[in-house]
């Protein structure tokens, strides 16, 4: 049976930036791919997680404080997450919730918080939010893929070389450098919002394909969908970016920590 089991982590607490839209996109895209997607919600940090019957853990963006409180609770179950990934599970994280899984987060007031350390990433809180459109490319899902969306960045991420999700074409990315996101064995993180999977359904396909492959599922696409609307949307946004690049705010990436 082509079934993927997705666990939607703390949807009410990790509730920022309309990223419940990513769940809607995964539902739609899985249907197009002929995959049965079973979604379960886990509500509070102390609630049990059924790692055994989960193929994807989706962690939407949260306020920094909530992510740090979450990490504090989940640290006691760090080994469960490690075992889950080693067994073939996938964790997909968006935005600031990276603080749960990073090695550490340095806050503006100088305090340092420990994360699960599932990714070799350290985070530093920015003085204020950095916002902009973002475009990046990735080849982590087989095909060369361009992704378009926006960023509302509260944390600067130092990601080890070779562990990035993609190469940034426009925007802030992880830390003003040339890379975006994190992609390790079984762990994918992006700063892209929009919601990212709504605006880039091919990204949702990539996530589902990766999870399916890790689970050993072979599936055939039900029907062809060319995502015309999404492609038109992204072209419009890229034209807006081109307009900006001609103007004074072309590459204003000066909102330093």
């Amino acid at each position: 049976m082509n079934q993927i089991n997705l666990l939607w982590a703390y949807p009410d607490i990790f509730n920022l930036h309309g990223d419940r839209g990513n769940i809607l996109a995964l539902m739609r895209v899985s249907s197009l791919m002929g995959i049965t997607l079973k979604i379960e919600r886990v509500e509070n940090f102390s609630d049990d997680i059924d790692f055994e019957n989960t193929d994807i853990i989706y962690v939407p963006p949260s306020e920094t404080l909530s992510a740090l409180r979450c990490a504090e609770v989940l640290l006691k179950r760090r080994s469960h997450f490690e075992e889950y990934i080693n067994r073939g599970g996938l964790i997909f994280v968006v935005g600031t919730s990276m603080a749960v899984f990073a090695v550490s987060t340095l806050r503006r007031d100088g305090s340092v918080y420990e994360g699960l350390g599932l990714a070799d990433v350290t985070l530093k809180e920015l003085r204020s939010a950095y916002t902009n459109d973002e475009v990046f490319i990735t080849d982590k899902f087989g095909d060369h893929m361009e992704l378009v969306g926006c960023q509302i960045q509260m944390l600067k991420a130092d990601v080890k070389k070779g562990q990035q999700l993609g190469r940034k074409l426009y925007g802030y990315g992880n830390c003003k450098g040339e890379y975006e996101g994190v992609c390790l064995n079984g762990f994918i993180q992006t700063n892209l919002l929009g919601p990212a999977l709504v605006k880039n359904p091919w990204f949702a396909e990539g996530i589902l394909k990766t999870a399916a492959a890790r689970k050993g599922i072979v599936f055939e696409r039900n029907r062809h969908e060319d995502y015309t609307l999404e492609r038109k949307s992204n072209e419009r946004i890229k034209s807006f970016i081109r307009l900006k690049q001609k103007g004074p705010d072309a590459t204003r990436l000066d909102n330093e920590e």
Partner: protein
Amino acid sequence: MRFFAVMLIAKSVRALIRLIDKQRGTDFPGRIALKLYPNFNLNFKNINHDKGIIVTGSNGKSTVTNMLYHSIKECGCTAAANLAGSNMINGAVSMFIENCTIFGKLKTDYYIIEADERSFPLIYKAFPAKNILITNIMQDQVHRNGEPDFIYQILKKTINKNMRVFVNNDEPRSASFAEYAGEAVYFGADKFAEAFYKNGFTDVTLPCPICSSKIEFEFLNLSNTGRFKCSGCGFASESLSKDFVIAASDTDFENGNCTVKGTSCVIPYNMPSMVYNLSAVLAVCDSLGLNIEKAAEGMKNFINVAGRAETIKYKDKTIKYIRMKQENPETLQDALNAAALDKTPKIIALGLCTLKERRPEWQPHYTNTYYAYESDFKPLLNSGAEKIICFSEYVCYDIVNRLKYEGVDQDKLEIIDSDKAEDVFAAIDKCVCRNVYIITLMSKMNEFKKYIYKNKAKKVKNEPNKSFMGLSRYL
């Protein structure tokens, strides 16, 4: 002497600006004064901070400030207020310059300052009012704030035991500030007949501001505003029977009225969010010893600051505008809900915009439309929307995509990849239905108004008791 000289300059600057445009001069005199004399604000006289009110929060600040000002006047007192929305320190100082004598003596009984959330600490430091009203703390201006907790922490650091706070009993972040103040009065509302629930599989609420557990709502009167309880620490809305809770009850949108503290009140503009604004205003009046019956009576002739909700006759159509704020899901939801109250056939022109259209000076501009995924379009779509015109030069396809996820029939959608009034109104002109709602930014609507007034449009008199749904009934 220095104060007197600077006051003279600031008042002269204000007078000059007002000679050119009566709507201006709400910020610049304060800026000049503080530039010339940084401690300028310390020299005002006759200010009784016990009769000072600072209004802050994400949504509703300007409206509540205007309503409060109106109510105080209706009660026979005088007030100074920054009604024009210049809500940073320069605006507050300008307000005092306007309302003080040349020697710096405040001429009014009360003062009301609308304070931008980020400016609240600075404004409070300059004018330590006893009374602080926090309307709500929502996702707002994410390009500046990123997340609501950013603003929450700014306010939390300033709220202290010398204050009396007026907090929203139905909005968790606002309500939680009661803990940090010396005295708290809660405003709110009992369950509306039109209340809704967040119990769909993909519905989300918010984290508890105290412990970050899930907040559960028994019902919602507005987006993220309703009777709540934290599933972790038990933090919850106060019981309406408590004497420090002043809540609207028996809210009746059919007739446009509700009851607050036994007083029957007209709901200005008959919109759900106005019930909360009304209870907030009456809670302040009650605490200040003003006659709330007079204040409530005064709401019958309250006219809000221009642009929040307007009705304009245009050719054979009635255009009803409801404001939404950039990147602010709650104001979009409130606009959708207000339009949904009208069950008659209607056209919706929905224009989400880029940041550039809202604030050209805030850079870099971007195309964020996430807030549409935090809003529920179903009530509007089920209320007789015949057609939805999705307009925007850069994000029109994102609007269509959002509606597609809501299951809207593609035949009902029209895509206009332009923000220009002539393009949007060409689409509106083609519609047979004469009942048209425009939901977009105020700055965009101001552009549209220039176009429609050129086309012999007629503004319907801004009558507070003629609600949008009431209006559609008698047209």
